[in-house]
């Protein structure tokens, strides 16, 4: 029985090693924030983090995830207050909302290594995530808002440290 580390917790799952991680997370662990959209790596609805990198959980097998740090939308922040989640609410991004866990997880991976992305960098990074409701412009705005908030926060942090 494979052992997985999800959102900081150790969980043993009952699944063959070739089972897509998506179904184990959703149906077995019943963490349903991660969505199924295409099962083929084409839509991004199933995006999670594996050791901090955004991956498509429909294209990742359980055995590939063993020993790695898995983060899902439920574990992105303790109270749903990651700067991206807050920006998503401020910009009122979601329509049906189905793609949005994946969008947020995809965007979070970008901001964790580049807190000052250009518009083109955002588009290039996000282009694999479909939104059938076409909320793209709000997604862009929210990413920019979160990025600037993260920069402000980290500047404040640096200032505090330096004083």
């Amino acid at each position, binding site marked *: 029985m494979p052992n997985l580390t999800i959102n900081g917790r150790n969980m043993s799952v009952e*699944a*063959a090693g070739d*089972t*897509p991680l998506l*179904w*184990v997370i*959703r*149906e*077995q662990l*019943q*963490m*349903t*924030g*991660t*969505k*199924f*959209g*295409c*099962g*083929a790596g*084409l*839509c991004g*609805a199933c995006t999670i983090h594996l050791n901090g990198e955004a991956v498509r959980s429909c294209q990742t097998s359980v055995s590939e995830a063993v020993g790695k740090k898995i983060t*899902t*939308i*439920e574990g992105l922040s303790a109270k*749903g207050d990651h700067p991206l*989640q807050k920006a*998503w*609410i401020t910009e*009122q*991004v*979601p*329509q*049906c*909302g*189905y*793609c*949005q*866990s994946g969008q*947020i997880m995809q965007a979070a991976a970008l901001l964790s290594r580049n807190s000052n992305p250009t518009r083109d960098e955002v*588009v*290039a990074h*996000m*282009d694999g*995530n*479909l*939104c*059938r*409701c*076409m*909320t*793209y*412009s*709000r*997604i*862009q705005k929210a990413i920019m808002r979160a990025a600037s908030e993260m920069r402000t926060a980290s500047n404040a942090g640096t200032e505090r440290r330096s004083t």
Partner: protein
Amino acid sequence: MNSHVKIASGAADLSRRSFLVGSAATGLVLGYAAVPGLDRALAAPSNFEPSTWYSIAPDGIVTVTCGKADMGQHIASTMAQMVAEELGANWKDMRVQLASNDPKFNDPVLGAQITGGSWSTMMNFDAMSRAGAAGRIALTEAAASVMGVPAAELVVRDSVISHPKSKKSMSFADIVKSGKATKTFTPDELKAIKLKTPDQYTLIGVSVPQLDIPSKTNGTAKYGIDVMLPGMVYGRVVTPPVRFGATVKSVDDSAAKKVPGFIKTVVLDDKTGSTSGWVVAVASTYAGAKKAADALKIAYDNGPNAKLSSESLLSEAKRLQALDDSGQFFVKDGDTAAAFGTAAKVMEAEYTTNINIHAPLEPMNAVAEFKGDILHIYSGNQFATRTGQIAAAVAGIDPKYVVMHQMWLGGGFGRRLDADMMIPAVQAAKAVGKPVKIIYSRENDMTMDYSRPLTYQKVKAGLDADGKLIALNHDVVSAWPTARWGIPDFLTPSVDKKGPLDSFTVNGADFFYTVPNHQVRAIKNEMAHNATPSGQLRSVAPGWTFWAVESMIDELAHASGKDPALFRIELLDGKGKNDGGAQRLRNTLLAAMGLAGYGTGKLPEGEGMGVACVSSQERASASWTACVAHVAVAPSGEVKVKKLTVATDVGMQVHPDNIRAQVEGAALWGLSLAMYEKATLKDGGIEQTNFDTYTPLRMSQMPEVAVNVIANGDKPTGVGEPAVTVIAPALGNAIFNACGARLRALPITADAVRAAMKA
């Protein structure tokens, strides 16, 4: 197909029902009486709960129950907004929940639970407002008696009722806890309540935060696909190679039986005609069900449609159009034949659209569970009334034993008006004696979509010597999406009395231009109807009728040497039956022109602006939308959309920010359909199976979209659909102005533009 399905109406006629405010264990509950004039609910509070429209808990939290399908249009939140406005509640205290299919949540106007056609806001405004006002009155009277002051001296604001003279006040929570707020409104009393006038609004017209949005940023919103029931197992659907008409000859599941967790193979027996030749592999996990499904060896008889292709559907459409006695008339004004005889110029053109797939991001799914006599269905569905009846039919039970549990919809766009996903869920649950969750693969979802049909339209128009449009014949050939439902009330009598027609194939062709001689013929393409059962795709007919009308109007303007926008404005003279609508559409067009800077400067070589204006989606419930598209066309035929300027007259804005979101989403849908989405039929099957070959617009393809909302204070209109229909013709017209290429087929491709440039 589905001809046994009838909508029971009447149960929903709220005008004959009392409105009750009563105390229950959970706090204050408010709703319409289940049976006209019968107030037994008050006597027995435990019976009251099911008919609740909203409730106020002892902590002051107001929970509104939404009988509509919320697929991202935030209708649940909007309903709460209407209630809160009249109730006088603080927005922070408002919550929403989704209703089950009890008839008491039926739409006050349509008499059934159906969400589509941008109808929701329009049709619920009065009922929700009155429900809110009734609550305020009951709370105020209770507060007056507790405080010992006249009710008329009380002020209600932000969930607090205060008496300015004595400075006394009570919160809603206090009043609920007092248990004093009980009241029955007779239908007449309810009707007599004076609602606020727009100048008194404090919430309507304000972009309050949507109540569902936080749950859609942290993974907690529950969609149909997220439902988990104890003991639930999983079904994976295997669909045949053809879209419709196949039968299963044999199934060999010997290999599937070796898959761990495999439970059973179920061959569907579907007498509703919703599916054909479907098999379900049931297993204890979804991954197991997929493995088992992949291991099935199924032999099919592919049936009568196995040789058909998009080409055959199109040539059949052309054949039908050429026949004089095809179809029925939707519009027959004046005498077009005579007018063509006198016309100085007669033009003809053919316009086509390909098959389009809804592809909401949440694939179709349903959970079915038999519990005693009751069949419970958990799914996000836009048409609970009919869907419940279909579920009952395939279960072999009376519809009154079906309870539909509404979930959030991961996109609808009209796809979830249909009920096909209920059939595998119900029959598999019945076969294995356990709750079964069915999740379509994306491949199931695409190849078995109730698609927007392939359409063929022929338009013939006559201009007089002054270049004035005097006659127009418009033939529309397509599968009939709404006729497929077999619900007579949804069909429209033909003006030539040749029996009902499906107006959801021709809406929009009855435009607001004044054309003295005008005919619109609806022709059913039976071949397409059978081979590609079609559905309602966001905005339905206006998605193709305005492609033809608004392209042809442009062609006529150019032929008569007039500016296409000014040519339209002349036709929107508001004469006769067009009075009112035409002027609103004209104003909207002028607004879009002004905002886009139409005709104010010279554009660089290879660039052009094009206009279109539409009265989607039905004449009787139109909203007024215009677009100026600005494109740049490369010599290769590659089209770059530089900007879409959309203006829309929506009457009243309940939630301005939501309207902008809906209109922008709709405009991008329109662009996606116009340029990026194309499905094709081959050997009876849909060729595109996933997002690699069926390719909705992505972020990198998004142009600048400027949305301008005109609110003139009229009744609120639908906003989620009209902008879908205005984009394609605006683009086509812009491309013509940029490079002289006239496009008449959707989607527009670089190859087609290049070919048309040469022509």
